[in-house]
């Protein structure tokens, strides 16, 4: 039974990582921006969700409000700041780094320094008994949401017109532009979607991981590990990388606790040596 719990745990954590990494990967794939503000999108999204949930008591409203607000924030940042440094990687990265600090201080100012936890929504409270232990329903819900989002993103990319444009933009932005695709609008849209996904991860992670100053930096590192393993710019890679990291992290901590600090980084190093572009990255 403990094996089942270990696997479920790894997958649930992996799904949270996937939501985080998908946005990061999407943005990099299209725009070649290494978006360090991604950690802030996660944290600010989580905090907004927390406040909305405290006021309205509704988890669904909290999710919607956080995703919309942060997507809008992302669009504004892309439109008015990143746009000025198009394809200029260093300044872009520095701008996103600056925003990371600004949002970090702003959220400390607004929400204070104590770690805060979202309440588990009513229907997912309680745990499924499993032998000596029990397994929280909420984590099963996380797995379901992760799979749903992964399926949705796949459908969006492969089956919709916008997705086709997106893939064209990733392959060759200039030709796409020449074919009449409004790549500039696409950029803003993708940045907003990526930010929204991070906010979704923030709210969903709230009841498990809690929100606190510094969480933005911590999750950023996780997201990077996932996209490095999966391959920057690839959704499939983000999913595979996230599940791999989630499961390896759980099993590593359970069976090789003395290496707990490295369970996430050893696979990354190994994969970087074997496949520098990641599992699904392009050469």
């Amino acid at each position, binding site marked *: 039974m*403990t094996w089942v*719990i*270990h696997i479920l*745990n790894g997958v649930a*954590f992996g799904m949270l990582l996937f939501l985080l990494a998908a946005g990061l990967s999407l943005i990099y794939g299209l725009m070649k921006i290494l978006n360090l503000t991604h950690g802030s999108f996660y944290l600010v999204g989580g905090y907004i969700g927390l406040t909305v949930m405290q006021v309205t008591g509704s988890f669904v409203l909290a999710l919607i409000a956080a995703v919309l607000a942060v997507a809008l924030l992302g669009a504004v940042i892309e439109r008015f700041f990143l746009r000025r440094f198009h394809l200029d990687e260093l300044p872009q990265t520095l701008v996103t780094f600056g925003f990371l600090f600004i949002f970090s*201080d702003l959220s*400390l100012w607004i929400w*204070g*320094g*104590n*770690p*805060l*936890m979202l*309440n588990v929504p009513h229907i997912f409270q309680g*745990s499924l*008994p499993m032998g*000596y*232990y*029990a*397994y*929280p329903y*909420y984590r099963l819900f996380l797995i379901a949401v992760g799979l749903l989002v992964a399926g949705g993103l796949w459908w969006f990319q492969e089956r919709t017109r916008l997705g086709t444009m997106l893939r064209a933009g990733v392959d060759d932005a200039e030709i796409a532009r020449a074919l009449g695709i409004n790549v500039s609008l696409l950029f803003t849209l993708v940045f907003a979607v990526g930010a929204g996904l991070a906010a979704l991860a923030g709210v969903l992670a709230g*009841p*498990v*991981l*809690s929100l*606190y*100053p*510094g*969480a933005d930096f*911590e999750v950023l590192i*996780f997201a990077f590990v996932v996209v490095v393993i999966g391959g920057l710019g690839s959704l499939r890679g983000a999913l595979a990388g996230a599940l791999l990291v989630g499961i390896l*992290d*759980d*099993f590593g*901590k*359970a069976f090789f*606790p003395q290496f*707990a*600090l490295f369970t996430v980084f050893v696979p990354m190093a190994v994969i970087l040596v074997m496949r520098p572009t990641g599992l699904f990255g392009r050469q």
Partner: protein
Amino acid sequence: MTSKDTVPFGATAGSHRKQNAAPRRWRAAAMVSAALLMLGVSGLAVRAADPIKVGILLSLSGNFAENGQQTLTGLKMYFDKVGNTAGGRPLQLIVEDTQSRPDTAVTKARKLVQSDGVSVLTGIVSSGEALAVNAYSRDSKTPLVLSGDAGVDELTMPGPLQNPYMVRITQNGRSVASAAAEWAYKKGWRKVVTIGSDYAGGIDTNFSFAQAFCKFGGKVIQAEWPPVGSADFGPYLTNLDRSADAVVVFEPGADGLRLARQYSEFGLKDKLPIMDIYAGMVFESNLPQLGDATVGMYSSLFYTPMLKSPENQAFVAEFQKRMHALPNNEGPNGYVGAHAIVDAIDALHGDISDKMKFMAALRAIKFDSPKGPISLDKYGQVIQTQYIRQVQMVDGKPSNVPIASYPNVDQFWPFTLAELQSFKYGYKESKDSLTDCTHLLAKK
């Protein structure tokens, strides 16, 4: 607010002074002669008009911002209570933000002493900052009253860190852990699993627990060390040795909050009791967020807002007015720090020019505080009451109710200084040997 606060950015006094050097020399000469003249007439009267400057070093941004804010509130509450005067002289507080970084803490300490001319430093949240500022205090002979969390045991033990210009009125790792060990053994627990945050403070605390628990006759049968910032305790919880009588934990910060919820979610709460050293899981601000997940958990600490003493009830009421939340250990620590400074200045009638006399006055303090009776040992470390608390529902709210207390615990208990010095291994050599009582109690 009656005190003149200088908030973090206001380091302007020094830069003003640098202008026009020529008149400065003349002014200095005039001032020196005037001072000498007046000193001859009535030394005390002049000094009575001067404010005593108190430099407060706290993390007001960065990882420990909340700890800093709570400590600052406690400090100000006591200074306000005495009208910001001590020994007949006004007190002037100058607050500096250390940004939770040791190097910044030293820079700010130097600024406070050399440019603002403070007579005493206080505050300091993290142990890293405490070690750095302690060295500066010793070198510059500046009195330092640690009133923040920094709990490294060695700071106040005879040894390389010893500093005659420092006292600590807050805490140290060993005492809180020892109280937990004593109570755990009396409760009938003989075999426990420890979970400790994997950094110096966590290893030191759980080592102190294991050592004391071994002395009483118990034994740690499994020691888990999740890294700081562990997102998920699932792998550790499913790996627990279930033959244990209880689980003993040291997990501060967000880790404690996560573990508290996950422990009950994984169905362990009613199977293996928890003893939470330092109350990282059942921290005051965590309780309202966790519903009944923490009810029944035990913790050890030198304070709980549920203490019924008049000092504490007045303190809690005022603290809630200022912070709109219940105090945890930091507010009372700041409050006691300010009380110690004020009492020492009072004892010398405001004349703290002789630093050794001032330090002696600090070491001699004795008063009742929100934490309970306070005094200091000859090494400058606080002697205070340690409490065992249990989360119970009071007026519908989960609260840390005191269920046992250990008065007058000194920093060495349950050992003596000589015993501690005779042990062969410290916490640094013991992370992998917590389950081995012969190792923990081995003599040199």
